[in-house]
């Protein structure tokens, strides 16, 4: 069962959409229709499926119809033709009340320019969705509080949006969507207004949250790097049409047409990236002090099958797999004895190109260490992909 199913969805803006629809179906192009009738084709016969828990990215240049498409999914825009099914229910046929109910219970949304309510403080914004459903004040503020903590905004509950930085405002936007606890998150260029560093943090955190909460995400971006980093699958749009859908590898290896390969070609420059630019903080680390028990608990918390071990000063010690941790726990062996030292390490300035081969034949993420052997970050296969270098093996380790 697909969580979101979009079928033959078309949106034409303008005075006479039905008539233009016929012409579109007969094969006229977007430009011809605009020239002849003044109607704009926003989305043209788009079809795709998003599975539960999937991170689905829609990418395309400005004006390709991404915003229109995502707004058709929760019917902020009425389609000209076609259907959208949420949990197999056709949203395009719902009456007003059913639509409101579906938006409340199933579809959270995050906006490019945040769309926060300027007259409400952070809690007021985050609790809005619950408030309009009539959830009691205490309960909704408790849930809002949890969402605020999930996005790392604890302490800012009573700030107003204009007192927060862009990155923080978008965290509020994200928390507002999380508070409703919908299965689906619709995100229209949610990070495009943020500067690169904050953007990278937000991407990492979103991935983490999505894993943790099991959300189905429909994410819009015009940035290929972002698409490759985040998407389980990516759909590429041009002039309102979806020209290719596939995983990162599929799109990079077999671009469906020139449009896509132009996109992909562009990314070659990122081969000059070095390790530091693509590494990220591991989700969890553990120290000897906690012993195998703590390590097992931490792995369980994030659903990982291995964990990196550091000493008190962050010096890298090795990798502990869940099997070894359990063995150490049961047989009361000290953790040092069961550590896996067979992990590739590298320096922050190593070019990414040099790591392709390594990434291809290691099961675990590559560990980035500074001169003092302190752990700076890890590079997983996903990160290497987003630097546009293909790894081969499935990466079953942390993250």
């Amino acid at each position: 069962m697909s969580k979101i199913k979009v079928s033959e969805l078309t949106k034409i803006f303008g005075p006479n959409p039905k008539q233009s629809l016929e012409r579109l179906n007969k094969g006229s192009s977007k430009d011809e229709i605009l020239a002849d009738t003044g109607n704009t084709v926003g989305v043209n016969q788009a079809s795709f499926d998003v599975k539960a828990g999937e991170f689905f990215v829609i990418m395309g240049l400005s004006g390709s119809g991404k915003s229109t498409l995502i707004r058709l999914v929760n019917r902020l825009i009425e389609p000209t033709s076609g259907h959208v099914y949420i949990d197999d229910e056709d949203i395009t046929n719902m009456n007003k009340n059913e639509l409101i109910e579906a938006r409340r219970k199933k579809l959270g949304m995050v906006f490019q320019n945040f769309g926060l309510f300027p007259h409400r403080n952070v809690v007021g914004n985050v609790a809005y969705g619950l408030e309009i459903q009539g959830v009691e004040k205490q309960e909704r503020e408790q849930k809002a509080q949890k969402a605020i903590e999930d996005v790392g905004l604890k302490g800012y509950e009573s700030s107003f949006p204009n007192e927060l930085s862009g990155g923080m405002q978008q965290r509020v936007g994200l928390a507002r969507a999380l508070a409703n606890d919908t299965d689906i998150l619709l995100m229209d260029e949610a990070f495009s207004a943020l500067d690169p560093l904050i953007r990278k943090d937000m991407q990492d955190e979103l991935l983490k949250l999505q894993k943790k909460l099991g959300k189905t995400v429909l994410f819009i971006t015009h940035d290929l790097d972002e698409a490759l980093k985040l998407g389980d699958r990516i759909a590429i749009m041009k002039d309102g049409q979806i020209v290719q859908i596939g995983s990162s590898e599929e799109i990079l290896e077999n671009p469906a047409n020139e449009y896509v390969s132009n996109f992909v070609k562009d990314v070659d420059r990122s081969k000059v990236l070095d390790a530091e630019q693509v590494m990220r903080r591991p989700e969890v680390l553990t120290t000897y002090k906690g012993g195998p028990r703590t390590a097992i608990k931490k792995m369980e918390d994030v659903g990982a099958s291995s964990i990196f071990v550091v000493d008190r000063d962050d010096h890298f010690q090795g990798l502990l797999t869940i099997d070894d941790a359990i063995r150490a726990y049961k047989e009361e062996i000290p953790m040092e004895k069961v550590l896996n030292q067979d992990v590739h390490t590298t320096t922050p300035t190593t070019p990414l190109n040099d790591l392709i081969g390594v990434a291809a034949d290691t099961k675990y993420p590559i560990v980035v260490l500074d001169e003092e052997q302190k752990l700076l970050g890890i590079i997983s296969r996903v990160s290497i992909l987003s630097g546009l270098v293909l790894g081969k093996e499935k990466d079953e380790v942390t993250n």
Partner: protein
Amino acid sequence: MNYFELPLEQWTNTFVDDWFLPTFGNAFDSIGSVLNAFVDLVTDVLLFIPPELFTLLLVILSWRVGGKGLAVFTFLGMLFIGSVDIWEESMHTLSIVIVSTFVSLLVGIPVGILSAMNNRVQSVVRPTLDFMQTLPSFVYLIPAVLLFGLGGVSAVIATFIFAAPPAVRMTNLGIRHVPKEVIEASKAFGSTSKQLLFKVQLPLAVPSIMAGVNQTIMLSLSMAVIASMIGAPGLGATVLQAISRVNIGLGLVGGLGIVVLAIILDRITQGIGQGQNNKS
């Protein structure tokens, strides 16, 4: 240019005398008596409060919304009004301003909301407002007197016609200027149109609506002199009296009284509007 006779004057009079008045006379009578009671009530209350207490309350309000400077000005202004012996007239003027502002907002804000929600409503409302504001007030003073008789009620009606448009316009504007993404966000989370209006659009339009309220009050005050031509008591009547007796001193007293009231009311409503602004 008199190519054909257009007896507009005669038609209008026939229409009013033979059909309009017999049909709607009663309705206007009841509107008239309600408004009359309202004006009387407000006047009675204002005159009942001892001037010292009234001044104290107004100074406190000024202090809270406008700070020390405004409080001092309000105190001196009210002292002036008392000292030149126009307290009673000022309270009459104030009660007509209060009632016509109240009626203007009662009608104006909902109409403003409707025209913000619906372009077709707006396309009717807009020219009507232009008409109301540009029509010379003497033109509707006559029918007002005809329908409601001489006195405060006609003054309220005439003032309403002149002063309600900004309330409508600024409400409409305030709602229409709520950013599109904020509206989308509200809808995306499943707001009903009522929730959208009351939880998002109206609160965000408050500063604009308050600016409209301020303008409505100012326009009401500026109608004071004209309104007294149809028998409304108050500072306008003082000024009229001064004109007819060529009494420059009295004219100055009445005129300054209006100015003092205007400044105090203007600063207080502005202060309230800004308070709303700062909150968001």
